[in-house]
């Protein structure tokens, strides 16, 4: 017994004698946000934002920049710039510049995925312009831009209009057949950071953007909404613009795939939406049930219209961000799917959108 204990103690001492894997919290520079841009020389410009812990300074964050060939090499450069040990285990946000996104992101994402200290729930966002500049910029009431962007996107994603994309979702959609990656786009609006759209990818290259206005239509077509908010533009009867604002929106989509006689696919996209009308600027009185039904139909028509338009654009850019390919794949045998080049087939697919709208109530007044 005594011998065993002695051996155990010796083991503890020996094994820890040259311990280097200790990472004591207050000696770490924990990268909160990393931004990636391509430079003119074809190199990579990495910008990292590290929160400053010392309560005695005014500064809330430290910005480190390095121009390197690889992502992880940047960390070595960072280490030379700071007295802290730079680690990426507390990273929450990856920002990619637009130019980089258009060239392809997979190799940068892959590097992050390979690092065990980087979590799968790290968010991935595209920046309209230079990511590093946005991160380095000061946005007055917000001491830490990285954190600000993270929270902004978290909040937006919870309202369902703009999806927040995590590393996990990026790699899942990238590696899966029949669906393409999407990511939110933010841009620098002088003193504010603004969510300005959704980036749609073909493979790992960004090929198209959906403006914020159509974010809702895109979200309705892509999947379920829960407790969302929606403002829908309608062409009024008199040609005047009308707006219907819905709250507590829940929506579902269903996809049905048919094969047309000529070998092409026809996809029926059923979108059903429920919500209560908060605001409506048109002529109808919502008190009347008949009027409400009319409004429902009108909204449905407008959704169908816009959705089909959006999908047509996506087909032109060959990005299947709605994941229609998955339904096509499921309707086929494995061999048939393997033999088919979906990306080439996709633009030929005939997509029809069927929307169904239900007004649950029109507010609590009256």
């Amino acid at each position: 017994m005594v011998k065993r204990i002695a051996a155990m103690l010796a083991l503890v001492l020996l094994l820890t004698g040259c311990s280097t894997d200790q990472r004591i919290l207050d000696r770490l520079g924990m990268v909160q946000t990393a931004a990636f841009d391509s430079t003119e020389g074809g190199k990579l410009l990495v910008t990292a934002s590290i929160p400053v812990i010392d309560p005695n300074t005014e500064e809330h964050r430290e910005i480190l920049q390095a121009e390197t060939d690889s992502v992880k090499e940047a960390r070595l450069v960072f280490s030379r710039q700071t007295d802290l040990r730079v680690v990426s285990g507390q990273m929450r946000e990856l920002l990619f510049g637009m130019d980089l996104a258009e060239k392809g992101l997979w190799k940068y994402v892959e590097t992050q995925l390979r690092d065990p200290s980087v979590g799968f729930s790290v968010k991935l966002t595209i920046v309209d312009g230079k990511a590093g500049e946005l991160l380095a910029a000061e946005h007055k009431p917000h001491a830490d831009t990285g954190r600000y962007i993270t929270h902004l996107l978290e909040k937006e994603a919870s309202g369902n209009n703009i999806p927040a994309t995590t590393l996990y979702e990026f790699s899942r959609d990238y590696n899966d057949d029949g669906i393409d990656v999407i990511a939110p786009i933010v841009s620098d609006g002088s003193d504010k950071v603004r969510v300005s759209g959704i980036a749609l990818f073909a493979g790992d290259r960004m090929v198209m953007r959906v403006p914020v206005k159509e974010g809702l239509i895109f979200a309705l077509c892509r999947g379920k909404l829960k407790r969302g908010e929606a403002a829908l533009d309608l062409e009024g009867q008199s040609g005047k613009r009308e707006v219907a604002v819905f709250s507590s929106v829940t929506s579902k989509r269903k996809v049905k795939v048919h094969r047309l006689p000529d070998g092409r696919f026809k996809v029926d996209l059923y979108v059903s939406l429920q919500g209560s009308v908060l605001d409506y600027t048109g002529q109808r009185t919502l008190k009347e049930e008949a009027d409400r039904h009319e409004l429902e139909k009108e909204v449905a028509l407008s959704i169908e219209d816009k959705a089909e338009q959006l999908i047509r654009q996506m087909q032109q850019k060959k990005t299947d961000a709605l994941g229609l390919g998955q339904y096509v794949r499921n309707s086929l045998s494995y061999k048939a799917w393997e033999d088919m080049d979906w990306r080439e087939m996709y633009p030929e697919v005939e997509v029809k959108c069927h929307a169904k709208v239900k007004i649950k109530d029109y507010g609590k007044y009256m």
Partner: protein
Amino acid sequence: MPKQQDQQERLSLRHILQEFEECADLTQREFPEIGAYIVYFSHSVDNLLLINQVLDPLSSLKRKKDLEQLLCESQFVPVTDSKTAVKGILGGGVAIFAADSVHLIDVFGPEARSVTESETESIIAGPHDAFVESATTNISLIRRRIRSSHLKVIHCAVGEVSKTDVYILYMKDIANLDYVKDLEGRIRRIETDAINDGGMLSQYIEDKPTSVFPQFLTTERPDVSSSKLVSGKILVLIDNSPTVISAPASFFEFFSSSDDYYERWVLGTALRLVRYVALLITLMLTALYVAVTSFHYEMIPESMLLTLAESRNRVPFPPVYEALMMEFTIELLREAGARLPTKVGQTIGIVGGIVIGQAAVQAGLTSNILIISVASSAIASFVIPSYLMSASLRVIRFGVIILAGVWGNMGLVFGIAVIVIHLCGLSSLGSSYLIPVAPMRSRDWKDVFIRAPFFALVTRPTQNQTSNPIRQKNRK
């Protein structure tokens, strides 16, 4: 008959006085008219009894014949060998030396503390009496609760010098006689000079004396003791100690308190769960702090990261030293509080509270969050009803903290694994210490992790191996 003469010679008054030579506390009195001597220890006899039973009758006698008659009464036990006479006098008897015989009368009645409230196991609702040092009082407290002739008492004397009375109590038809025999054998095999307390006795008869965990439940509450008895456990009472041993015991028994049964079952269940959480907190919270702040910064939630890092910022030591230092300070405080009289103890509490609270943080010795974790684990350790168990867990905690400081979460898990493995290997009177979890006895769980309503508590614990497992009729 030279042999008998020899014995008679040995049991003479002279011989007894020789035995008690230089015992200044021995009292002897002579009654010259009847030629009688009495010898006793005045401090271990009851004065009233002494006067009524011995002094008055003897002094009223005039003739030797009357004495012989008196001594025929049954309370006067004739003694023939001197060993018994000595033992009797030591046990609170009066030895009466007549011309040709020696008699003993038991008028035992030493000074004793009256029955008071338990300090180590106080409860809010329920009986408040606690055992005292006198074993006879203690047995009477139990007999008062269990009025059954099936409550059997075995007597042994332990200690080669002290000859302390030890009583083994069990319910015939409920307790497993194999356990009783085993326990009695263990007690009879003890060879030592003196045993002063139940806690000490239990260490002599445990299955594994080297373990940190107590393998028998000790209590000083008569209500707990009697409920253990009727559930089929065996009690060991030792004279001169309020601590009663209950055997066999399982690890989980240490986390139940008698008021679980006196309060509503929902409350009892909630309190039990709280105690198991307290077990985890007291073992692991500070260790987790050490592991997280020195190895696993990734685990910290974003919103806590800055506060945690900020509070660590001024601390000059690595987290493991910081934590050990604070835990040590808490132990100092606790020990000081336990040793000092209550009035001074309060001062210690205040001074300690300031020292390890605000001041230590302001001086930059520790971080706020560590203080919280150290304090919560100290408080959690006091939640555990058994003082012995909570003390054991507090000691183990230091080991877990060191492991966490050396290997992070892996060390923490390693430490917990070692503890669990050790617990699995323990036994109490040969029955598993981790029952009803290992071996699995799901029927018992409703009185271990929760306190189910009484209609559901039909059976006695499996561990007791009782021949009579049904406790009550199921009303539902």
